[in-house]
């Protein structure tokens, strides 16, 4: 074999090597992703705990989703790994927590690249929080089966299951003004039903607040004890000379830092979480802050938990965000992803449904759109009203775009609204991130349609300056990857974000000492956290400068030399996870290598 043919073979196969022995692997190694569900922390009030007198019953709705005797003390994660030919375990495992109303899905491209780059040395475990198991995803699974055999009508049935036809009030015949006829058959169809876990058939099972009252006990304490199990499992894999790294994206950095500062010993002793990990990776989030100015007293805290646990009490989970039904968004994203993967360039089926015809999505999806466009309009930093969900996935410039100023919608920043050109024969198409004709400003003017995907946000601030976005924006994320994330088993959107107890807990920020009861909440060790920390930001994201991490760095005991920040110019909030050729991967792998070398000095 010549050198040229060797390199061609490597390019085709990927590579693997060992200094000792390696097993035959003719096809070459491939990065693998698998969804893992395992036993979690046994929270006593949770259905399935078996704690007599404390365990709360599962409602019929929950039983229809999970069976007559569900055990909800479970934790799940998306494991990304690349088996070494030698069969040796990885030397490092990175455990990641998703952000606000998000799941493990957005970590998929990032994890694949990290693992491929390290070629088996590193694994990534991306967590889905507990409520994931309560999501009724039958419609998505059914749609996937129908797509697999080319049955678009079956896919419409799945949509009908989630979003049945609507006969709007009025005397006009169905379908008439304001009506929704998902499959276009001219008949008002009932919800489509599928077999459920109790042996019957049921339409989409969407939880009500009273189906999840046990969520009053799903706060930081429960979550971090779930993750401690994963950390301990990871340690058993990599051994004492390997690395267990913990991190998160966006609000996931708050979760990760309260984990690091947690004391698992509720008595007078200390069992600090940071002693179980070897480093913290903070992706587009500055970690937990100081919390609310006025924190609840212990009595107020206990009273709030009791209220949350009571039937018809305050909301357990976040039902909507910016007016959008979160469970419906999560459920529809699965089918929207499948639609985009199977019908590229075709009119999006989701636009036939009531969710797309109801505010706020009726505004966002007002123009007829292709399957990729509906995903882009929702996710892209130029077209999403919510910057926290934004990435740089391309643009749509084949129709009129209206620049909506910040604040027109509550909590929304400036964004482009893709509008209808009133030609019934056309649908808005999406230009992917690598399209060479993506518009930029200049020469375009932002306020003149079609506007621009690319802008310059000014000079880089000094490390001591207040954080501001800066630099040349880049389009780096592939809309097809986004569709794959939508369609994946792991969550893109967390349907039932347990806001009630979590919001209560996060009022204490990174130090809950004032609460005075470590059996309820024990974020008491932040000031002692001394592990290396790497912050990764995007210059067009939420943590665009070194200063974005200053508050947390100032609150911990990590030496200055072990507090590092890398800012990716032009990256938006999601890009650090979704970029197709992610510039944050080499510095993160280098960080892992340095920590690994440090650990191996003790022995190998």
């Amino acid at each position, binding site marked *: 074999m010549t*050198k040229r043919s*060797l390199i061609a073979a490597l390019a085709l196969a990927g*590579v693997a090597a060992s200094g*000792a022995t*390696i097993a035959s692997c003719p096809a070459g190694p491939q990065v693998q992703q698998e969804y893992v569900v395992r036993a979690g922390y046994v929270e006593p009030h949770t259905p399935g705990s078996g704690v007599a007198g404390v365990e709360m019953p599962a409602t019929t709705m929950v039983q229809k989703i999970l069976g007559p005797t569900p055990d909800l003390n479970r934790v799940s994660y998306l494991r990304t790994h690349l088996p070494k030919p*030698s069969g040796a375990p990885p030397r490092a495992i990175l455990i990641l927590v998703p952000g606000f109303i998000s799941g493990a899905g957005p970590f998929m491209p990032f994890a694949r690249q990290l693992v491929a780059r390290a*070629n088996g040395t590193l694994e990534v475990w991306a967590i889905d929080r507990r409520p994931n198991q309560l999501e009724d995803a039958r419609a998505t699974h059914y749609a996937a089966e129908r797509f697999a055999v080319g049955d678009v009508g079956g896919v419409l049935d799945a949509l009908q299951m989630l979003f049945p036809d609507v006969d709007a009030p009025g005397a006009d015949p169905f379908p008439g003004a304001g009506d929704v006829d998902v499959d276009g058959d001219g008949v008002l169809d009932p919800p489509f039903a599928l077999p459920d876990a109790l042996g019957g058939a049921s339409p989409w099972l969407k939880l009500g607040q009273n189906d999840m009252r046990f969520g009053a006990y799903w706060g930081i304490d429960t979550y971090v004890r779930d993750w401690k199990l994963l950390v301990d499992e990871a340690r058993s894999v990599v051994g004492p000379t390997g690395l267990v790294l913990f991190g998160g994206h966006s609000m996931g950095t708050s979760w990760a830092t309260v984990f690091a500062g947690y004391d698992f010993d509720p008595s007078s002793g200390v069992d600090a979480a940071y002693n179980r990990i070897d480093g913290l990776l903070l992706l587009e989030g500055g970690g937990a802050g100081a919390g609310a100015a006025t924190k609840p007293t212990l009595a107020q805290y206990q009273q709030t938990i009791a209220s949350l646990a009571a039937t018809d009490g305050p909301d357990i989970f976040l039902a909507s965000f910016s007016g959008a039904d979160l469970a419906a968004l999560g459920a529809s994203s699965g089918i929207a992803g499948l639609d985009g993967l199977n019908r590229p360039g075709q009119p999006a089926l989701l636009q036939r449904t009531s969710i797309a015809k109801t505010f706020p999505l009726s505004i966002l999806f007002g123009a007829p759109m292709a399957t990729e466009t509906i995903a882009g309009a929702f996710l892209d930093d130029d077209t999403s009203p919510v910057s926290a969900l934004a990435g740089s996935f391309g643009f749509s410039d084949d129709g009129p775009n209206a620049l909506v100023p910040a604040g027109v919608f509550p909590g929304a920043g400036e964004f482009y609204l893709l509008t209808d050109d009133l030609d019934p024969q056309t649908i808005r198409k999406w230009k992917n991130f690598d399209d060479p004709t993506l518009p930029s400003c200049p020469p375009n003017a932002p306020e003149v349609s079609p506007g621009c995907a690319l802008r310059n946000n000014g000079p880089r601030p000094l490390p001591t300056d207040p954080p501001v976005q800066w630099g040349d924006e880049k389009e780096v994320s592939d809309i097809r990857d986004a569709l794959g994330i939508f369609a994946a088993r792991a969550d893109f959107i967390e349907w039932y974000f347990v806001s009630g107890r979590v919001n209560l807990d996060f009022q204490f920020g990174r130090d809950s000492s004032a609460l005075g009861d470590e059996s309820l909440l024990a974020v008491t060790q932040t000031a002692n956290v001394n592990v290396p920390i790497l912050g990764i930001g995007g210059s067009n994201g939420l943590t665009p400068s070194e200063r974005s991490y200053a508050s947390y760095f100032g609150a911990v005991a990590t030496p200055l030399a072990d507090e590092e*920040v890398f800012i990716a110019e032009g990256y938006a909030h999601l890009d650090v996870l979704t970029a197709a050729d992610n510039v944050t991967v080499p510095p993160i792998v280098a960080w892992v290598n340095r920590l690994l*070398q440090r650990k191996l000095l003790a022995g190998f």
Partner: protein
Amino acid sequence: MLLLRPLVAAALLCASPAAATTLTVLVVDSGQSFLIAEGGPIESLAGSLQLEVGALPVGPGNTTLDVVGLDLHASGGGTIVLDPGQPSPGLGVLASSGAFLIPTLFLRLSDGVTSVDLALPDVTGSVVFGPGGASIAELSTGFGVLTPSGLVDVTLLAVVPEPSSAILAAAGLAALVRRGRRGAKEISR
């Protein structure tokens, strides 16, 4: 199954004794360094590598052993260098016994037209120390690469250059340092 090919190497110490780390340039012995692709001819390897060692003599614990420069040429025309796109591409550890481990070695292979970056996990080998353990006298390592066409086995022998080649080694060192600095990525506090 690939067998690790033990190698024997010699090393040239060329570092300031006052430095906290020791820079060592090794020159590849073409007579004993080679690449064998399954079913293909044996290709000899030439070139040099540069190591940075944390502390010599190695104390009771381990010390760092970083490959900071690599410039290998196969007789078939291919080259192997450190991956310029990966910061810290060759971080490892060295035991007082002489055994070393590089958990992941990041390389770039090229035939002059096409190049491919690859990460080699668990690269092991050993060194023989010079008098008093104050220098590295020999190094040995080897690794295998799996392809659909079969196994490619790389064996590397680096030796202390003869005085006449020391000048070349020094020139190579300078070039490697420049290359390494160009490839470094910024990570700032």
